[in-house]
């Protein structure tokens, strides 16, 4: 599974990255975390509010910082979907 944090380096983007790290640790499964800072990469997801969270190429949240438990539940759903 791959999680991307989209954002051009604003303060909130760093917060979201930290939140994602925490969620991954809590989920306890192998997840690859990546920071996407290039504008044209970000635009490919059609995101107009940064930061945004992308799990397996799906935009899960944009313009807000979802709490870690919410991210964990997304990770779990994505993991279930991937193994099915």
């Amino acid at each position, binding site marked *: 599974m791959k999680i991307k944090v989209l954002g051009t380096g604003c303060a909130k983007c760093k917060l979201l990255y930290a939140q994602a790290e925490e969620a991954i640790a809590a989920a306890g499964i192998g997840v690859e975390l990546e920071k996407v800072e290039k*504008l044209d990469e970000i*635009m*490919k997801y*059609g995101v*107009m*509010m940064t930061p945004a969270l992308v799990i397996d190429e799906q*935009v899960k*949240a944009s*313009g807000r910082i979802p709490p870690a438990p919410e991210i964990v539940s997304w990770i779990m759903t994505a993991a279930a979907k991937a193994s099915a």
Partner: protein
Amino acid sequence: MPQETYQARTELPADEVSSRRWRRVSRLALVLIGAVGWWLLYRSLDPFAKWFTYDLLKMAAGSRMALAVEFFVFESPKVLMLLALVVFGVGIVRSFFTPERTRRLLAGRRETSGNVLASLLGVVTPFCSCSAVPLFIGFVTTGVPLGVTFSFLIAAPMINEVALVLLFGLFGWKVAALYMGTGLFIAIAAGWVIGRLHLERWVEGWVYETKTGVGQGGDETPLTWNDRARAGRDAVKDIVGKVWPYVLAGIAVGAGIHGYVPQDFMASIMGKGTWWSVPLAVVIGIPMYSNAAGIIPIVQALLGKGAALGTVLAFMMSVIGLSLPEMVILRKVLKIPLILTFAGVVGLGILVVGYLFNIVL
């Protein structure tokens, strides 16, 4: 047999339904208690400020120091309480509007009606100048005309909920409505003019080559009321947590002016009679980057000391609507002539509003 399955199906949710209803009732009660408590506290601020100044500190009634102290002790909690309430409410309202939805509404719009709609949406769509660039690219590459995009970009920061509610709280609904009406007018007119001028050549070339993903982009997860309430709470923590020092500083300056500056001091510099005060107010306002919360107490003090309303409105719009940092951010996607045109057209609109109110009122 079917009867039985029906039974089994309703029985389990019945529990769920009642607990859900209970949760809803208790949430409603909580909101009600909070609202009543807020109101009672708000009403007691004035007597408290008087008691604090004249009974506790035993200051002489009518002295300058006493006036300044009373002003500060009354205004600071009042403005902060209004701010918290409004930011919370707007945080919830904004959870219903996403830039993605706004973009869909605006894509392919004809210019004039598009300018009007974009300005109105600019008021309610969440916007932060830090994401002005992705928003700009997202709009112009998916069929929102350049002028319409500008209407949005002008309205979004200028007609700001914090400004509106503080104006309402401190000066009444007329001034708030005036600010909103003229702000919308400037956003619509300036966007329209920029659209007419066909300035697409001054947008950085790579912008139009960017492939913007459509259909995705929005928040994928539907929000519950809990999420919305949390959005409101987060907005309060974020915005009030950031602006309170500016608000207090603004009120302190206001208190100083209130107590120590003679009643008609500002009339000579910022009164109706001085024609150059409006352009000067606009020019001073551009590099000043303050949020609405910090500027309004100063505005209040200026008005109270005889400054003309048009001049003060122009100053405020210039501070909030024409910000240097935002122009620097937009430089990534716009060539300098377009940024200057943008600033010029908006500045001109603010000038017109300033003069208009000085003449009419």
